[in-house]
């Protein structure tokens, strides 16, 4: 492909076979034999530290024992009873800072039990064979409205449907799954999220209305009137701004939109990518966008973060993965200007930064430029509060009702939660 000096953005930079390799499963499933060997490494700790580190409190040694006795159904129950999205979490959880980070095997061997991979092994078969593990309790006649068909909304819907309530879910987008469907790197969840959602909904008693956005198509007041309880699992739909002139013009995109487009594209060869890409941010979204740009065939991908590696919210494993993939990571660099030639994006001017003695980030007054055909913004997401009238929000957050089922509360980081008191 010939190189253009300016505005070099194109789809199909790599052939189909290479793309298939780049967007196949990054961490392929374990075979039974691999799973048994790995399961035999678990010490079956008492009051296991891995469980303490799991935000959903899955009985990890318990399900691993099930794997080692070929009791996969028992193992799957242990996982999914605690976290109905155990399949998704097996793939996307940063296990290195959670369960695996605490595994006692880190001590002598520096190699934890591969809990994520085992969790996937223990649950994959459920979705593949479409096995029903749950049934509904007798109908209670109670109705609950849920806003958002992301992980929080659907986990809540499933828990309520299991108890016999009738649930209606209102989702603004065309598909269910939220972050799982739109926000995760394609190679982490190959052909999975939709299948998982379909399985979850097969319990019955849950109706999902797509294209139904809070504040546009439905109102909170209306929902409160129609339902005994309302659960808001609306996530962080907004993207923080850079505060640099021209950031809404051609060539500059939100990383989440790029990630979503790529996830939805059946043929990755149709997704345009710049020859030179600059990603701004320090979280996993930034990393996912950078690596996927590279894997689509970008020649030079630069990830710029205004502080040091330690404060990046991307885990060290993710950061290392980005470097391995050939992403150039710049620390202590903040964007000050988007450079344009004839109206076309040409690059980003950065200022070197440092921390002063009080730990405050300060500019150095020294500048440098990185060429770019595309800039992807990934400096964090924010709550969109349209449609959230009244005392529902506080400091840009929804006031959560701590009586919400724990499984829903777990997803608060990705989807803010509130349950109006049932009437």
């Amino acid at each position, binding site marked *: 492909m010939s190189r253009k000096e300016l505005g070099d953005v194109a789809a199909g930079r790599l052939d189909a076979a290479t793309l298939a390799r780049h967007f196949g499963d990054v961490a392929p499933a374990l075979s039974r034999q691999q799973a048994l060997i790995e399961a035999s490494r678990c010490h079956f700790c*008492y009051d296991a530290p891995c469980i303490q580190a799991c935000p959903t409190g899955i009985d990890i040694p318990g399900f691993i024992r099930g794997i080692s006795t*070929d009791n996969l*159904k028992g193992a799957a129950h242990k996982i999914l009873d605690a976290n109905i999205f155990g399949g998704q979490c097996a793939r996307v959880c940063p296990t290195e800072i959670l369960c695996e980070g605490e595994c006692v095997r880190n001590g002598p061997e520096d190699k934890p039990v591969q809990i994520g991979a085992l969790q996937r092994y223990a649950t994959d078969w459920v979705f593949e064979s479409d096995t029903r593990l749950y049934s509904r309790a007798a109908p209670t006649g109670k109705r609950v409205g849920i806003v958002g068909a992301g992980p929080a909304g659907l986990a809540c819907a499933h828990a309520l449907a299991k108890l016999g309530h009738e649930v209606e879910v209102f989702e603004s987008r065309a598909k269910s799954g939220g972050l799982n469907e739109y926000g995760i790197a394609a190679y982490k969840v190959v052909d999975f999220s939709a299948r998982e959602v379909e399985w979850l909904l097969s319990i019955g008693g849950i109706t999902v209305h797509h294209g139904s956005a809070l504040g546009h198509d439905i109102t909170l007041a209306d929902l409160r009137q129609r339902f005994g309880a309302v659960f808001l699992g609306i996530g962080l739909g907004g993207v923080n701004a850079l505060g640099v002139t021209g950031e809404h013009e051609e060539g500059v995109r939100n990383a989440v939109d790029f990630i979503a487009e790529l996830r939805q594209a059946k043929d990755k060869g149709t997704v345009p990518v710049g020859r030179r890409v600059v990603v701004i941010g320090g979280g996993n979204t930034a990393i996912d966008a950078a690596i996927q740009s590279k894997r689509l065939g970008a020649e030079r991908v630069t990830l710029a973060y205004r502080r040091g590696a330690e404060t990046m919210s991307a885990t060290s494993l993710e950061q290392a993965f980005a470097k391995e993939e050939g992403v150039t990571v710049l620390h202590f660099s903040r964007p000050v200007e988007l450079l344009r030639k004839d109206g076309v994006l040409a690059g980003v001017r950065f200022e070197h930064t440092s921390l002063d003695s009080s730990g405050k980030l300060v500019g150095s007054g020294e500048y440098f430029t990185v060429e770019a055909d595309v800039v992807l913004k990934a400096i964090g997401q924010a709550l969109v509060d349209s449609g959230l009238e009244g005392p529902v929000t506080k400091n840009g957050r929804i006031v959560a009702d701590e009586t919400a089922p724990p499984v829903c509360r777990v997803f608060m980081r990705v989807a803010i939660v509130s349950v109006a008191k049932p009437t």
Partner: protein
Amino acid sequence: MADLSTNFIGIKSPNPFWLASAPPTDKAYNVIRAFEAGWGGVVWKTLGLDPPVVNVSSRYGAVQWNGQRMAGLNNIELISDRPLRVNLDEIRQVKRDWPDRAMVVSLMVPCDEESWKYILPMVEDTGADGVELNFGCPHGMSERGMGSAVGQVPEYIQMVAAWVKQYSKLPCIVKLTPNITDVRYPARAAKAGGTDAVSLINTINSITTIDLDLMAPTPTVDGKGTHGGYCGPAVRPIALNMVAEIARDPITHGLPISAIGGIGTWRDAAEFIALGAGTVQVCTAAMHYGFRIVDDMISGLSHWMDSKGYKTIEDFRGKAIGNVTDWKYLNLKYDIKARINQDLCIKCGLCHIACEDTSHQAITAERDGKRLFEVVDAECVGCNLCMHVCPVDDCITMERVDDASFQNWTTHPNNPMSQKA
């Protein structure tokens, strides 16, 4: 969901998983924790007459295998070292608090009628569901004429079992020692004495290891050691055979069996039940991991039963007994050959060297100068050794190649005593 409940010689429990008479059932504290964890029943740690025995310090030795703990456990503990009254009071209270669980009391008293006549009414008075006669303990007690010293003499077994049935209405289980040459004799004796059931196996006489610095067996008590009782995963095959022998012996066939020996998972339990066991007892696995292992045993067994369509334990109990036979009845015409899946082969060469050095030279190691492992059908006798040493699942399988004819040793021309077919 499968129904795991059992009724074993009139003793009911919500599942077939009992804890064997041993430290896990030594006192109320442990037994309550076990019941809370979900165990279906316990056989209380063996009671004797006062004054209680005295135990040594340093009691266990263990065998590791390839760095894995524990292939086998060995102990030199004796029976309960607590006063009889304390045990009886606790048994009464626990049974009252947990009426749906099986409470069996293990007993070992001297081999005289008076002793049994004395202790049985006291046990009956606690409300316990049954008694188990410990004729198995291979160390310490046997030197005092109890335990395996009784279990090794069929006449004594029969005599004591008869006393127990005479002086108590409680269901009686005779616990057999594996430290004999043919387990059918003590089992037959127990039946002749009128026992309701047998349980087996107790521990096997063993020395786990010799400490090469101390030049003494482990566990080492102040420089000396003694033989102890071996249990845990390593003894399971021995227990399976002994259970099968009793189950298929025409004299004892149908005698209820509570199986013991190396059981730690639902699968182990299912295997013993397939050989006719009505309940299973666990000791070492619980001592290794705690009572919570019963969780996977219950869920694993019921999911497996669901997958097979077995609704109750009785639906598959004893199903394997008919397929345990004597060697002479096996089909000598049955012929299988090893098949190596070249796509799965990792070229480790273990199959070749095992067959080449120690068996039938039926696996070649190269072709045209390239490393390749192939079976020579004409040499392969279908022994399965290569399949067992191959580290890759399903890489070596055995294919049946015979013409489905049948001939066993009883009619084989090489058999001098062959009965003409």
